[in-house]
């Protein structure tokens, strides 16, 4: 075990959150060893392009690493790829890898992310049914594309819709099945979802709401068709599942840490055990902006919370207080969201949706909660400043296109 003079930091999970924790702890003055342990065999990489440029063939794997190998060397971050942590012993302050190696820590950060949820339908294990989370998943999907004519996407969330857009752009026939009565039911508000559905349909995607997959049929172990709950049969050489993720809580729970849809942490990303922190997709945290506990799945959240946690782990307790933001690219739509719209009572559209460039502002009791921008990046960046400063222009002001949002954000 490391001595008090050179405290050892161990980070489990080497992706957006884990890589950032390690870098930020070093930048904040952590002098002891840092081990960044990740199950995947490669350098930490960018996940968002997997359902966008990578699928379209515009981006290749070599361009995905978040940092070069030289970065970890220079920062004396000991990266252990291809290494799965199987258990945590909090009293001994060690983690044990799947290969049986014991590694001691003074501070442990869990950055283990989330895994795709799979619907419990017959045929889910057939060859040709894929979920998209990792580079390995994306490579499998891309390799299969030449033999795909028709695809069914189960789930109308961001990843499912990005995959639907990419496959359509590649000339595939695509059907999206969504159980709810609108798209993006978990992650975005109805006014945005309605526009997104219209764009997908205009581009030829068969969007079926209130429809679920009852079973997937195959021949010789390979996917042939999806049978829906309404009895319709959709031929499919490829089925992509995008119905959300489950946070990886097994390690933490087995170590006796509280988990409820995520490892529970405080605003410093610390669990009830001050030696153990958790960040990114795997944790449930008191969100300063929302004023309640929640779990977020975004690069912004992973990176910003990890910056705070890295400083905390280095002995400089830093609360996580950033305003949430997110983006998604589908067809020629750049969707950018800032704030959290939960609980909105009133919305205002700024700009003309028919032009494909507009923003939707969500209010509650006259206070601005969130902004969704479609091909209006200027309003998104102004919105980030406004919300970070706690400013709220009125609904009348934002509805008036001559009202200068950027100036209001600078004021």
């Amino acid at each position: 075990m490391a001595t008090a003079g050179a405290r050892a930091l161990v980070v489990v999970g080497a992706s957006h959150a884990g890589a950032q924790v390690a870098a930020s702890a070093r930048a904040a003055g952590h002098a002891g060893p840092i081990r960044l342990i990740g199950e995947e065999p490669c350098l930490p990489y960018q996940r968002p392009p997997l359902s966008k440029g990578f699928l379209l063939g515009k981006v290749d794997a070599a361009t995905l690493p978040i940092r070069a190998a030289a970065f970890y060397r220079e920062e004396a971050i000991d990266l252990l790829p291809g290494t799965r942590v199987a258990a945590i012993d909090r009293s001994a302050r060690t983690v044990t890898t799947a290969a049986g190696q014991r590694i001691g820590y003074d501070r442990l950060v869990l950055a283990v992310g989330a895994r795709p949820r799979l619907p419990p339908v017959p045929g889910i294990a057939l060859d040709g049914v894929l979920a998209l989370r990792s580079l390995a998943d994306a490579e499998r999907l891309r390799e299969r594309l030449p033999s795909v004519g028709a695809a069914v996407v189960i789930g109308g969330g961001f990843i499912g819709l990005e995959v639907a857009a990419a496959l359509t752009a590649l000339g595939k026939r695509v059907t999206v099945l969504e159980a709810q009565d609108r798209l993006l039911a978990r992650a975005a508000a109805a006014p945005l979802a309605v526009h997104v559905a219209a764009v997908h349909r205009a581009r030829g995607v068969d969007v079926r709401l209130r429809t679920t997959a009852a079973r997937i049929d195959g021949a010789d172990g390979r996917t042939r068709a999806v049978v829906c709950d309404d009895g319709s049969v959709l031929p499919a050489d490829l089925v992509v599942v995008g119905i959300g993720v489950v946070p990886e809580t097994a390690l933490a729970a087995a170590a006796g840490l509280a988990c409820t849809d995520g490892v529970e942490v405080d605003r410093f990303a610390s669990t009830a055990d001050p030696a153990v922190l958790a960040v990114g997709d795997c944790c449930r945290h008191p969100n300063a902006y929302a004023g309640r506990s929640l779990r977020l799945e975004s690069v912004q959240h992973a990176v910003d919370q990890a910056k705070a946690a890295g400083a905390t782990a280095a002995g400089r307790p830093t609360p996580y207080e950033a305003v949430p933001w997110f983006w998604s690219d589908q067809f020629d739509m750049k969707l950018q969201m800032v704030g959290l719209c939960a609980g909105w009572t009133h919305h205002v559209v700024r700009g003309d949706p028919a032009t494909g460039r507009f923003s939707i502002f969500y209010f509650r009791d006259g206070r601005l909660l969130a902004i969704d921008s479609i091909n209006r990046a200027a309003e998104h960046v102004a919105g980030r400043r406004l919300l970070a400063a706690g400013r709220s222009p009125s609904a009348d002001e934002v509805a008036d296109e001559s009202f200068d949002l950027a100036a209001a954000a600078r004021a």
Partner: protein
Amino acid sequence: MPRIIFFQPDGQRREVEAPVGSSVMLAAVQNNVRGIDADCGGCCSCATCHCYVDAAFLERLPAPEDMELEMLGGTAAERRPNSRLGCQIAMTAELDGLVVRLPDRQV
């Protein structure tokens, strides 16, 4: 292969090679040049690949698209007339010797 000369926020000069078609952001990340965060991985969504392009090269670059110009409104460091997003500059043979200064902060 065209070269890019970066000046890191700490003043250090870093000369790197960048394949044609690759971006200024990628050249920085892949060569461990400090001063670019690139949180969105080149999706033109974060403005943390902000850089200042040397005036001599400015007109050799294709003009920024609207999306880039709008995102430049969200840079952490001061926006200047030569501000660009590194992920939106594709390298070409004519850009050999491109001089890029990185701002002191990206967030």
